[in-house]
């Protein structure tokens, strides 16, 4: 046993692209998730965070590398052998409008995983279990026979969460679960996810482009840029003392709801993001990095420990550029 619930070892995912090119969605990523912790996965669109989430729960197969669940290499398992582990891993999707079948009632939607895994005997037992799950996510029980379109976005996301926890998983990938919701509703869902984590002893991989969401939920955070990990470690530590230049840009760019900081010049990232089909040599961030030197172009910096967190930058010790 490695002691981790989930572990990715040198996971790479290439997608074929036009002109025999390959898109490097995830490149040589290694990370560990401990039982009961929440790992936040942050990055901008196209950085590979959703792909990595899907690789970890074997919705995608890596091009190379392996994923281990409770020490067992699940990448090597046959589908039939993997089935018993599938139940342990669930996914909460971004769009609560698209992820629920519009022709199924709430009862049937939430009952589906219970029936798939044959967790209850009779139909009544299943319905009772559905009621219990709806209570857990604060959806009134009298809505049992309603359809998704009769609910607000927030309630739909609650139903999506009820489905995800129905088979009693130990690991849930939340892929942008609140970004389609109104601000006042987002917090309700985030609080719910946090409560469920404690009451059901869950482990989360929490994917989000919203740094404030991750700040609230994640014990540790992993920042990705163009398929690579830039920085990973304790959330508090990274938010207060970011080591990687990209993390700094990301944190600086978040608009703060305080007009008094307005005069302060915000450092803007220069240029356009490089293409994942044709990533730069060396450090992938170097074409946009104010600190980049020849060394950064010549070879790729490895993740290394700098005071408790890991960062992939040659100049991580030197503070803001």
């Amino acid at each position, binding site marked *: 046993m490695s002691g981790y619930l989930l572990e990715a070892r040198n996971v790479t995912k290439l997608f074929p692209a036009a002109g025999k090119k390959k898109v490097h969605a995830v490149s040589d990523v290694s990370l560990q998730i401990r039982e009961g912790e929440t790992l936040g996965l942050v990055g901008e669109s196209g950085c590979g965070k959703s792909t990595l989430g899907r690789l970890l729960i074997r919705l995608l197969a890596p091009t190379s590398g392996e994923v281990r669940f409770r020490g067992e290499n699940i990448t090597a398992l046959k589908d039939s052998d993997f089935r018993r582990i599938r139940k342990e891993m669930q996914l909460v999707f971004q769009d609560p409008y698209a992820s629920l079948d519009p022709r199924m009632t709430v009862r049937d939607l939430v009952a589906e995983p219970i029936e798939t895994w044959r967790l209850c005997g009779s139909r009544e037992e299943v319905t009772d279990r559905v009621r219990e799950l709806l209570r857990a996510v604060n959806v009134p029980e009298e809505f049992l026979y309603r359809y998704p379109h009769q609910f607000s976005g927030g309630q739909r996301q609650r139903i999506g969460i009820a489905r995800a926890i129905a088979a009693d998983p130990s690991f849930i990938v939340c892929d942008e679960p609140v970004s389609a919701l109104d601000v006042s509703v987002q917090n309700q869902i985030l609080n719910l996810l946090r409560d469920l984590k404690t009451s059901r002893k869950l482990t989360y991989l929490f994917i989000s482009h919203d740094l404030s969401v991750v700040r*609230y939920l994640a014990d540790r955070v992993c920042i990705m840029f163009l398929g690579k990990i830039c920085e990973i470690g304790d959330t508090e530590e990274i938010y207060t003392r970011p080591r990687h230049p990209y993390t700094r840009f990301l944190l600086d760019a978040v608009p703060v709801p305080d007009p008094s900081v307005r005069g302060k010049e915000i450092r803007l990232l220069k240029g356009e993001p490089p293409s994942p089909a044709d990533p730069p040599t060396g450090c992938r961030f170097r074409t946009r990095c104010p600190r980049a030197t020849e060394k950064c172009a010549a070879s790729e910096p490895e993740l290394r420990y700098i005071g408790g967190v890991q960062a992939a930058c040659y100049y991580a010790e030197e503070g803001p550029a």
Partner: protein
Amino acid sequence: MNEMTLEVSGLTVCYPTEKGAIFPVKDVSLKVPAGSIVGIVGESGCGKSMTARAVMGLLRSPGKVTAGKVFLCGREITALPEKERRKLRGNEMSMIFQEPMTSLNPVMKVGKQVEEAIRLHTDCSREEAKRRTLELFREVEIPEAETRLSCYPHQLSGGLRQRVMIAMAMVCRPRLLIADEPTTALDVTVEAQILKLLEHLRDAGTSVLMISHNLGVIARVCDEVYVMYAGRVVEQASTERLFEQPLHPYSRGLFRSVRSLREGCETLETIPGVVPNLLRLPQGCSFSLRCPECGEKCEKTMPELLETEPGHAVRCFRAEGGEE
């Protein structure tokens, strides 16, 4: 002394539905002074986008402006015939949207699309239009502008597409630019760039009406803010004033819901309940169902939008000090 680029007074929009008429915008008044960025903030369905569409004259049928007036640089435009309204759009006022991909023609090169807009609004030659397009692309800071002219929309990133949209909106140097959630679909580092660009445009003489649900965005660029809820303005103040002392319980709820980057916390603040259905609005204050301070009077009567001090208006009995 301060010239108004846009003045809206008592604007009401009505949509007939099978279950009765709804008013997504009800008695909305607002002003955009020349050379400023004014924000409208609120959640989905609060009427902020609908207000913008009504100002532009772009309401989707069967929606109608049933009351109120819109003045563009002092000229009343609501009563103008459609042909005249059309002349204003693009020339005097233009609009950009949340998702630039849906506003661009996917099978036409972006340079051509901007050229087309130029030729439609001016009588310049093809060559001249081409030159102007390149200028505009440079002005909105599109890197490698020349090569981007011959790109199709799908070949551009979201940020670049939004820049193309802004270039197109700026063709005739309109007096007013309405930006409807212009950065919501973009990454934070790109968002920061686009907000900077909007400030440059403001400095160059285009006033901006900015619609957003993000208080951070509002704080960064707006001079004045209107908070909308269920079709009405519930609070209005300068950005500094509103962020320092929000008075309406809804505004206060929004501010409390903001998640901090600097510190973690145990439980996030929420506003209980959901935005009400416009068909089933409560009799009194629209926010009364979710308001932690709701009193008897609030359930029965809709409060007026009243100034508590010069430049700060709020639609709440509590803030007036009338109900304790």
